[in-house]
C-alpha cells in the first residue's frame, strides 16, 4: 500500500542520510599542507597540494602570496613555524581562489620555486638579500629617483608566477587612498521594484555616479565603482573589488522595499554577525586586535580562525563601520527630509567579506509610492549623494 503518508515518512530518513554523508565528506576534506624549514643559506617552504591546481606567486613587501585556483574546496594545515626567516602562514579564500600568505621577517628576499610533480609539491626557497644602505632604508629623508621607486613597488614576477591579480596594490603602495562605491544590484538582478516601475538598480547607480563625482572633485581619494553601468556583478566580487583595491572605505547604496505599504524613511546598516555567543567573543577579540589583520595570525592559531578572517573580514571593522554608519545617517537626516530610521545591524552578504569600514545606505523606500517619486528625482538623488559625501568627509577627518 503506498499512501501519501508513507512516502512523506520516508523523506526525513533520506534527508538525514544525505546530510550524514555530506558531513562525512566534509570530514574527509582534502588538505593543503604547508611547512617551513631552514637551510644554510635559504629557508624552504613546501606546499603539498591535495591535487594539482593552477597557482601563481606574487611578492608583496614581506609577504609572498600563493594564489591557488581551486574548483573544489580544501582545508589548510600549517605546521608551527620555527624558522629564522619565515614568520607565519595564513590563508584567505574568495570564491574559487585560495591565497596562502607566507609572511617573512624582511621584505628583501628572492623567492625561487620549483615543483615536485610526483608528490604534488611546490617548493619555494627564500634567499635573503643584502641589507640596503641606510639612506635607502629611510626614504623620507632622501627621496629616491622615480625609476627606483617603480622597481621597488612592482617586484619582478616570481618564477612560475602569473600576472599579479591584485590590481590595486600598486596604487595603494603609492599612497593613493581608495573609496569603493557599490551601486546595489544591476543587470538581470534588478533589486526591488516600485509601484510605478522604478527599479532599485537604476536609482542606486544614479546616486553612486553623483557621489563619485563629488568625491573626485573635492577629495584626494581614488573612487572605484563596483559597476558603472547596468551590469550583473556578484556580491562576492563587489567585496573582493574593495579588498583588491585596498579600499579604505566601502559604501553600498540601496533603495529599500518593505512588505508594509507605508514603510518610509532612510537608514544605514552595518554588518551583524551570525555568530553565537562563543563565536562572537572570539570575533570580538579579533576586532579589538584588528592589527591582526595586517599581520597574519600566529601559527598556533592556524586553521579555522584564519578562514573566518577572510570569510568574515568585516568582523574586525565593526566598530569603525558603526561610527561611519552613525555619521552618514546623521547627514541623511539633515539633508533628506525623510523619516530617521536610525542605524541598524543585519547580516548583509555584500558587507561580509569587506576588509575595511563598510556600510549599506538605504536611501528611501521604493515600495512607498511617495518616496518612489522622490527617488527618481535628480535633486533627491543629489541630496543623498551630498549627505553620504559629507558623512565621508567627517569620517575621513577621524582617520589617522
Amino acid at each position: 500500500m503506498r499512501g501519501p503518508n508513507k512516502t512523506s515518512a520516508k523523506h526525513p530518513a533520506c534527508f538525514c542520510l544525505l546530510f550524514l554523508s555530506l558531513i562525512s565528506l566534509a570530514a574527509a576534506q582534502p588538505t593543503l599542507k604547508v611547512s617551513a624549514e631552514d637551510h644554510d643559506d635559504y629557508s624552504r617552504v613546501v606546499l603539498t597540494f591535495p591535487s594539482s591546481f593552477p597557482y601563481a606567486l606574487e611578492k608583496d613587501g614581506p609577504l609572498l602570496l600563493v594564489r591557488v585556483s581551486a574548483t573544489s574546496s580544501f582545508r589548510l594545515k600549517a605546521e608551527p613555524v620555527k624558522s629564522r626567516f619565515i614568520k607565519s602562514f595564513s590563508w584567505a579564500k574568495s570564491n574559487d581562489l585560495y591565497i596562502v600568505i607566507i609572511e617573512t621577517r624582511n621584505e628583501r628576499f628572492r623567492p625561487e620555486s620549483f615543483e615536485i610533480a610526483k608528490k604534488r609539491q611546490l617548493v619555494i626557497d627564500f634567499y635573503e638579500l643584502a641589507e640596503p644602505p641606510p639612506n635607502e632604508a629611510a626614504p623620507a629623508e632622501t627621496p629616491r629617483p622615480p625609476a627606483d621607486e617603480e622597481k621597488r613597488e612592482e617586484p619582478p614576477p616570481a618564477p612560475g608566477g602569473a600576472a599579479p591579480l591584485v590590481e590595486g596594490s600598486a596604487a595603494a603602495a603609492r599612497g593613493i587612498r581608495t573609496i569603493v562605491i557599490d551601486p546595489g544590484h544591476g543587470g538581470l538582478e534588478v533589486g526591488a521594484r516600485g509601484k510605478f516601475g522604478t527599479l532599485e538598480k537604476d536609482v542606486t547607480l544614479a546616486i553612486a555616479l553623483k557621489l563619485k563625482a563629488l568625491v573626485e572633485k573635492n577629495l584626494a581619494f581614488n573612487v572605484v565603482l563596483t559597476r558603472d553601468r547596468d551590469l550583473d556583478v556578484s556580491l562576492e566580487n563587489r567585496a573582493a573589488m574593495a579588498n583588491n583595491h585596498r579600499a579604505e572605505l566601502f559604501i553600498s547604496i540601496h533603495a529599500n522595499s518593505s512588505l508594509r505599504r507605508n514603510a518610509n524613511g532612510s537608514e544605514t546598516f552595518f554588518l551583524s554577525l551570525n555568530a553565537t555567543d562563543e563565536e562572537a567573543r572570539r570575533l570580538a577579540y579579533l576586532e579589538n586586535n584588528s592589527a591582526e589583520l595586517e599581520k597574519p595570525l600566529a601559527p598556533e592559531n592556524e586553521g579555522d580562525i584564519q578562514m573566518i578572517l577572510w570569510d568574515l573580514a568585516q568582523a574586525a571593522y565593526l566598530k569603525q563601520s558603526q561610527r561611519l554608519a552613525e555619521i552618514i545617517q546623521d547627514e541623511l537626516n539633515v539633508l533628506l527630509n525623510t523619516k530617521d530610521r536610525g542605524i541598524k545591524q543585519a547580516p548583509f552578504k555584500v558587507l561580509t567579506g569587506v576588509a575595511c569600514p563598510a556600510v549599506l545606505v538605504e536611501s528611501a523606500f521604493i515600495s512607498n509610492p511617495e518616496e518612489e517619486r522622490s527617488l527618481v528625482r535628480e535633486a533627491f538623488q543629489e541630496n543623498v549623494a551630498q549627505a553620504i559625501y559629507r558623512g565621508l568627509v567627517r569620517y575621513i577627518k577621524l582617520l589617522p
Partner: protein
Amino acid sequence: MKKRKITPSQWTLLGLSLITILVLAAVLFRGAGGEKIKAGAAPPPSEAPAEPAAARPTKTINLLFPSEEDSLLHPEPREILAGPSIGEEAKQAVQELIRGSGKGYISPLPPETKLRQLFVTKEGVAYVDLSREVMDKHPSGSSAELATVYSIVNTLAVNFKPIKKVFILVEGSEKETLGGHLNLSEPFVPLPSLNAR
C-alpha cells in the same frame, strides 16, 4: 493394497479446522488492513491542528508576524500538535507562518511557498528547506528580506529552546540571498531586537 478411508468423523474435524483457519485469517487480515487504512487516513498534523479529538495533545506557540504599524515582529498564539520531536513541531510552526496571520498581520512569506523539509541537528541548527516561491515571488528589498527571514528565525528560536541557529535552504540547496541583501549562505542567529515587547 489397502486404500485409506476417511471416516465421517475425520471429515467433520477437517471441515471444522478449515473453517477455523478461514475465520481466523479473515479476522486477522481485516484487522491489519483496517489499521493500515486508519494510519493512511490520519490527517497531516498541520491540516487539522484544532481537532480536539486528535490522539496527540496540542500545545500553544507564538508565531511572529510583521505588522503594518512598525518594523517589529508581533506574537500571535497558534495551537499545534505536540511532539513527537522538536523538528515535527518546528515544521508546523513554519507551515503556520506560511499560512499567515488570523489577526491581520502581514504574511512574511509568499503564500505559494511550501515547506519542503525541516530538521534540527544535535548542535541546534534548524535547516528549513523552502520551495522556490520564497525567492521567485519575493519582492526583494532589505526590509522585506529582514521580515521574511527573521519571522522564521525568531519564531523558531522563541518557541524551541534547543534551536540556536536557522539555516534557510531553497529547493534543497544553499542560496546566496533571497533578493540580493541578507546572507543565506550561513545560518542565522536570532535577532531578538526585532521582536515587539
